[in-house]
């Protein structure tokens, strides 16, 4: 499926900050990713939302005339770094003690003397863990996006059947509940799977401009 150079991928379109549609789609989709990742890193929900807000704002300005240089890495690496930086910035802020539910230790390197080897090792494994978390959320993000599209485009019955299956109901009971055959249920599952796979691949391609 050849994509003409002039046809803009999502990222390409982001260069134009006045392209409202592109931006809201981007933000809606990726916001969840950022918030969940931040919470995984130990932030409270409200702080995580703050982080998301900041990230998108700074992205907006950074993207003016932004050209993604492929040799420097992929979009998601870029996003990861942006979010990480934002999280560090957040945690370096002085926090009012009483207000928060409880202090959650966020890894930061402020205020220490020359890091010892132990510190470095701890930092390194923390870094690995952060990468792992982000990767996980990133994949979830794509699944989420794909499923939203499926909800939009598949018949309501098919979606309902599929959601039953997602909840852990067996194929047999689902078939019974919808007064159809197990083969039909399997077929729905298969079609949705195939479509999801397609969508996810396409989404990832889109990310890379």
């Amino acid at each position, binding site marked *: *499926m050849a994509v003409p150079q002039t046809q803009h991928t999502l990222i390409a379109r982001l260069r134009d900050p006045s392209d409202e549609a592109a931006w809201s789609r981007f933000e809606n989709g990726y916001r*969840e990713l950022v*918030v*969940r990742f931040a*919470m*995984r890193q*130990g932030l*409270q*929900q409200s702080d995580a939302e703050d982080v998301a807000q900041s990230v998108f704002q700074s992205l907006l300005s950074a993207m003016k005339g932004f050209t993604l240089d*492929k*040799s420097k*890495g*992929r979009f998601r*690496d870029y996003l990861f770094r942006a979010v990480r930086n934002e999280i560090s910035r957040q945690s370096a802020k002085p926090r009012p003690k009483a207000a928060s*539910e*409880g202090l*959650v*230790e966020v890894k930061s390197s402020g205020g220490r003397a020359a890091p010892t080897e132990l510190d470095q090792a701890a930092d390194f494994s923390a870094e*690995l863990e952060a*990468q*792992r978390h*982000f*990767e*996980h959320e990133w*994949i*979830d*993000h*794509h*699944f*989420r996006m794909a*499923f939203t599209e499926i909800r939009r485009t598949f018949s309501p019955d098919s979606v309902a059947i599929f959601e039953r*299956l*997602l*909840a*852990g*109901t*067996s194929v*047999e*009971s689902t078939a019974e509940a919808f007064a159809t055959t197990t*083969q039909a249920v399997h077929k729905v599952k298969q079609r949705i*799977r195939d479509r*999801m*796979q397609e969508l*996810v*691949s396409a989404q*990832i*391609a889109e990310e*890379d401009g």
Partner: protein
Amino acid sequence: MTLRREEVTGEQLAASVEKTDARGASCGDSREDLGITQVFLSDAWMQRTAQAVTMHELGHLAGYQLVRVVQRGVQGTVYEALEPRTGRRVAIKRLPLVDAHAIEADRFERETEALASLGHPNVVALLAAPVDDGARLMVMEWIDGLPLDRWADELWNRVTAREALAAIVACLTKVANAVAAAHARGIMHRDLKPSNVLVLPSGEPKVLDFGLAKGLHATTETATRTGGFAGTPAWASPEQIAGNPRDIDARTDVHALGLLLYRALSGRAAFDGTLAILPLFEEIRTRTPFAPSRIRKGLARELDLITMHALEKDRARRYQSAESFARDLARFTTGEPIDAHPPSAWYVARKFVGRHRTVAALLGLTLAAIVTGTVVSAALAVEARDARNAAVARADEAEQARTRAERMNGFFQDLLSNLREREVAGDRAGAREILTLAAESIERAGTPRESEADLRTTLGVAFFEIGEYARSVEQYARAAMLLDRQDQARARAQVFLAQARSLMRTGDRAQAPSAARTAIETLTALQVPAAEIAEAHAVHAAALVFAGLHAKALAEAERAIEMAREARALHTLANAMSTRALALGDAGRLPEATEQAIDAALLAKSLDDLRPLERARMLHNASFMLTNSKRPLEALPFAEESLALREAHFGKGHPATTAGRTQLAKTLRDLGNFDQAILLHLGSIEALVDNSNESISLRANTRRHLARAYQVRANDNDDDLAIATLKTGLEEFAIARQFESTQAMSAGDYYFRAILQRDGGDALLRALRDEPARLAQLANDPLAACTARCESARVLALTMRKPRDPAYAVVASALPSLLVMYREDLAHAMTQLGPKSETTRRIELALAQLLSVDLAPEARAEAQERATSVREAFVQQSGERAAGVARCDEVLRWLAASPTETQASPAQAPAASPSSRP
């Protein structure tokens, strides 16, 4: 960036590095994208989707901050969360209560308290169990580990077999100890399964979800379907399925431990969780799974014993506690003898060690080594050495050798007479091992020829007694070779006769007649008493019947009858009459055959000193003939008595007993007593516990009859049961490598027919592709795929001859690809078996059947050619009456009718299989 282990393994990623991005553009690093592709290869994608679509506003639950949803299950949802003050990661399981009874709630409180105070390193620590908004929460320590099955599978791929085995056994030992600790506090698990045992990278297991299955009911869905059964179907024990809550005790958890061990060792679940509920339950209640060592080669026999001991259907026969299971595993690890063993083999072993210590020593073996392959005690080994030294110190070497051999013979005679005791004969596996090792040890001991001939003859009889006919033949062959002197001619002839008796019960039955003939020649030349010669003729006649040469068999049987009458050898007379009956039956003279069989049986009953087994055989034949003559009521008493005799002599697991049970079941089925018939078949399957190829194919064959009985009974779900049992049977035929036999092919035909009937044309076509492929994998031989669907060509052709058949359209449109498939099958058989093999011819016939319904003239011409040549070959091989000939004629008839006459003539009934012959 690395993906989390739970999603994709490093190996999978590495393996996919080769692939390039499908869209052609080379993305910076394509590996991670393909990692996602991997997720789509299994059902993991569903989990991820479920998890992804939850909104992030999870907020809080009972004070804990929720991070994400880990898993949604039917029982409830599992979250990852953070503890408020410490920020420690925890797992929270949220179980909505459907109906909260005060008593249940109470028990739950008590159990969770007990569990929380358990503090066992291998039990997931329960931190709190508050109630929240109509749901129970279980807050547990967070475990970053893999479920047991995935952990074990990865281990087998990652490290050497020995390391994997050691790690698995160590892990399961800890799991069992953890369960035992909980039992000590009165807590049962009741839902042990791989996803409830998480294993850390260090190999440390953590058991989760104790006691949940009871009292916290799942949705009504499971309740109504399974009558209140709670727990996961594929991991349930027989008594859980039976449903009586009072029957569930520690031994239920033992069964589950056995399933875990099975899964970790073999890489497969013991019971197929993808089956529908009722067939699955049927399997769990009645089917003994294959021993793990049959699935993963090289596993120690002790592990089989331990696993299968835990999986006994009858709780009383299992390990009585999780602790004893753990102990046996520990003993295996340190090389000590385990408790789980076939009791009668030990009984034999201990008895013999007592009486024949010297012999055992002289053989240089300990009996324990014979039975389990491990050395029982150093003491015995030392004794062996000492005895050997003492023996060597004696005078003449030849003298020693003779003495040794005499003692060995005495030993084996003793063994033989013990084998005839019911309990021991029932344990064929143990007896077989003893005998096999004994046979091997004869070589090593340097026995003089004469004694060796004696020993081998004894072994031949012994193997025959336990139904190991092929080995019996071997021993007799070697004995005969040793009896090569003139004065030994008579003995040699007798050995040949005995060999013929064994041969006719093996796949080489075509050679049985010549063995008998050799014996006759010798005995006649030696002018031995007439009765002996008559007996030899009778055996010859039987051999001819089994070899399918019924005309010659008839003549020979009549000769034997005459000679027996003259010599007044009544036993032989009865034998010969029974054989004549079988020959008449084969010749199509059923009424005469039936009368003759009855006469033989009545004569047998009147002879008090006739061996019980001979009597059983004749009664069986009479019953067989009577059922064939559609006289089941008269057949019944014969069948019952025959079976009783065989059970009394052989015990339940012997092939002769199985044949007897099958015959009785057939009779009952013809009388309309379907339930009894089904129970008999199930009993046979259950009793054929050992995993020799022979037992497995007997089981598979019994399943055919069982499936037929289900279909005839036709209760609700009976066709599901029939299909499930046939499917298992096909697997068994594949694993036992019997897929080329008539029974296996007939089972394939049956199975696909049933699929067509229940699920329609689409399903049939899918099954014809998928199922044989699976069987080929199981058998490790692509030919298994060809034989499985061979007979179904006829069903497809018949469907094509009926345009109004619902499956017509589907089959018609698939015809071209079906033809390709069967052509490939034929090509394959030609290469692997050669053009003259019967199997190749049958596949060729299948192709002809399909071609004959194609409208193209070239196809029909080809069909004509093939059907004709196959017919010729069958006639040459087995005569005009061979079943294959009739099929060829059918195809030729189809071809002769004009193509527009596609209305099928009434389908010919498939020929009866001679499977109930004694």
